């Protein structure tokens, strides 16, 4: 090990679950989302004709796999999810939640809108819903070298916590939004 000790530098955000994201991580995150988006794009060429029955069977198979892991995945956020789902120019929505044990959920939305637009929308929506927001300073974001590419915040309300990230999808210039929700321990 090196002589240096990992330290939280001043202004560095300590996210809800004490996940501290150094610069390299955020860059890699951005890249991984870009990869996913590129894969999605390649499959947007006209697909061959398939039977709806077969598609439905495949979806049910995923459902049974998820149920075995005490999880559920859908393409829509449930109406009772504590955080509103972004609706403008959405190309893909996935919602995954635990069905047993610690209540957790992850809402992921791909949209053509810019990260900044999406982030502003969520800030207003969360504040209006009574969430207490913790947003890293512009100075910190500048330090991370991710201006315009990554926006993130923590939010708290009652016994719930939220970790929100809006990441630029470089392939489409759109945004991948991840809303992680957890009941506090």
């Amino acid at each position, binding site marked *: *090990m*090196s002589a240096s*000790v*990992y330290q939280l530098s001043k202004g560095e955000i*300590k*996210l809800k*679950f*004490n*996940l*501290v*994201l*150094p610069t*390299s*991580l955020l860059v*890699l*995150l951005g*890249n*991984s989302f870009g*990869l*996913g988006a590129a*894969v*999605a794009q*390649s*499959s947007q060429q006209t*697909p*061959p*004709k*398939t*039977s709806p029955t*077969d*598609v439905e*069977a*495949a*979806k049910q*198979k*995923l459902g049974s*796999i998820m149920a*075995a*892991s*005490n*999880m559920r*995945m859908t*393409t829509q956020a449930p109406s009772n999810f504590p955080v509103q789902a972004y609706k403008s120019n959405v190309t*893909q929505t*996935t919602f*995954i*939640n*635990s069905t047993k*044990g*610690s209540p*957790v*959920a*992850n809402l*992921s939305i791909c949209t053509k809108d810019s990260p900044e637009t999406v982030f502003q929308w969520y800030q207003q929506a969360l504040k209006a819903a009574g969430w207490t927001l913790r947003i890293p300073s512009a100075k910190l974001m500048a330090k991370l070298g991710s201006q315009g590419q990554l926006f993130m915040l923590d939010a708290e309300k009652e016994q719930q916590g939220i970790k929100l*990230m809006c990441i630029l999808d470089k392939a489409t210039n759109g945004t*991948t939004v*991840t809303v992680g*929700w*957890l009941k506090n*321990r």
Partner: protein
Amino acid sequence: MSTVEKRSKRGSVTAFAAALALTLMVLGIGFIIICLYMGGQRETKNATDAGALSVGKEVLSEPSVMLTPAANQRCFFDCTNDTINNNVMGDGRVNLNRINRVWSKAMVIAINAEDSNAGGGKGNADSAFQGAESISNSLADKLTDASNLHGFFTDLSKKNSTRMIGVGSATEVKPGAGWQTSLMDRDAESNIELTGTPSNNFYLPPGFSMPGSSTTKCTRNPIPGEVSNTTFLKGYAPLQIGNHDFWQVPFKWNDKPHLVSSTPFIANKVSTKATNWTKPVPNAFSVEGQAVKPGATGEIASSWVLSNPRHAYKIAAPHSFLKIHVDQLKCHWFFYVPLKVEGFSTQNYDYTPTSLTGSTHFPGGTGSTSLTPPAHMIGLDVVGRTLDEIIFGVPKGSTDKLEKYMVSRANQMISKPGVEITASKLHSTLNSPTTIAWLIAGERDFYVFSKDGETLECQPKALAIAMAPTWLPLIIGESADGNETKLIDDANMPSVVNPPMPTSPSPIPFFTPAPPYIPNVSWVLWDKDVYWKNGTGYNGSLGEVRVKRWSEVHSVGVCIPII
């Protein structure tokens, strides 16, 4: 009247006066002798009282018993000092002041061995009991041998004047039946306090309850405010744990050594009032002194004294530690072909997140020849997390029992009366931000211990040894003597940070991949197992916590027929 009669009448007053004077002188001398006698009695009693108090005070330190090198006595070395500071080395001697510490540590070991996963700890608890009993019996033998106490008596008795007996006389020991011992204040409190209250089970390990018959509040009347809420172990009352009876000597809280009257002393002698303790350690002593000068009347006096160290301790195993080991983090890749199978590559990761891609799997799923899982950012379950969050954080699992074990062990390390390690304090110790740095730096073993008997530390090995250099290096290599059991079994949850990623399985001929995301999707699960290995503290280890965390990347690749 005749001449003779007249002559005898004239001499009668003088003779009477002379007789009276003689009588007065005799009475005076007699009075002086009586005064000297009574004064001598008083002085002898005073000197004997002083000698008795000296015995009552000095007997707390000597006679003492030196621990043998045998393991079942060496384990009590941390009880051979008069301080709560764990870093102060003992001298290897057990005396009346320390005997309750020895018995209480033996109790701690036995209580920990009552766990269903005690394993080899049960044998160690038996050994510890035998060691404590052997030490106690040796001490009892020495305390009941009056010759060990004579010196303390004469140290003070001779310094007190008995000039009424005669110049140069002094009160010395009168050996014999006047030197006895007694077990007074039965069922009163000992000088060992329990931590906490009955409502939190005195922070004892889960599954063990302290019998009410073995504990008591302070029996002084009125109860001093400082100990109004304190529970003590009861003296001369057996505490049965397993197959053994553990004992304590009663010492009323903050009571000074003092003289007592003969009546209660005699009433509590073993010969008068039996006890189940085979060789009880006495707390009261009778003395007999005599002041003699050759040619003068000697005086004998007896006194009775109840001893008390006025030093409270806590039920504890001072030199002990708890080890926390964090297993190597691993990433497992799963595919559904159609049944769930694990991929061939399992990758290690650490506390700095990294993008990982699993190996291509053949086949990839229903209707698919192969599937290369998309890259995911792995390590987000542990990045920036403290040791407390690694153990108790999400995915949480049922952490109650683990927490109770760790809290009970933490309290066993604390020697200072009145200091409680609550669950909150334990979490606070494990939540130290420095643990984040240590984990990132590659440390996997942490040690929880108390360097000073009143505060808790959680440090990696090198730092722990530096903080407690006098004792921790000697025991830090010891393993817990019990069996390991899994307390949290595969607590898991979907990652709240990793978004699901679409997959692109390679189709077999005439098939095409099903829609991305539903069903062709890859997601990340966070998983955790936590193990507890019971430790009695006999060899210093109070237990081991092992945390195993891993990530699972599940990838579904379904291809459907083209129509």
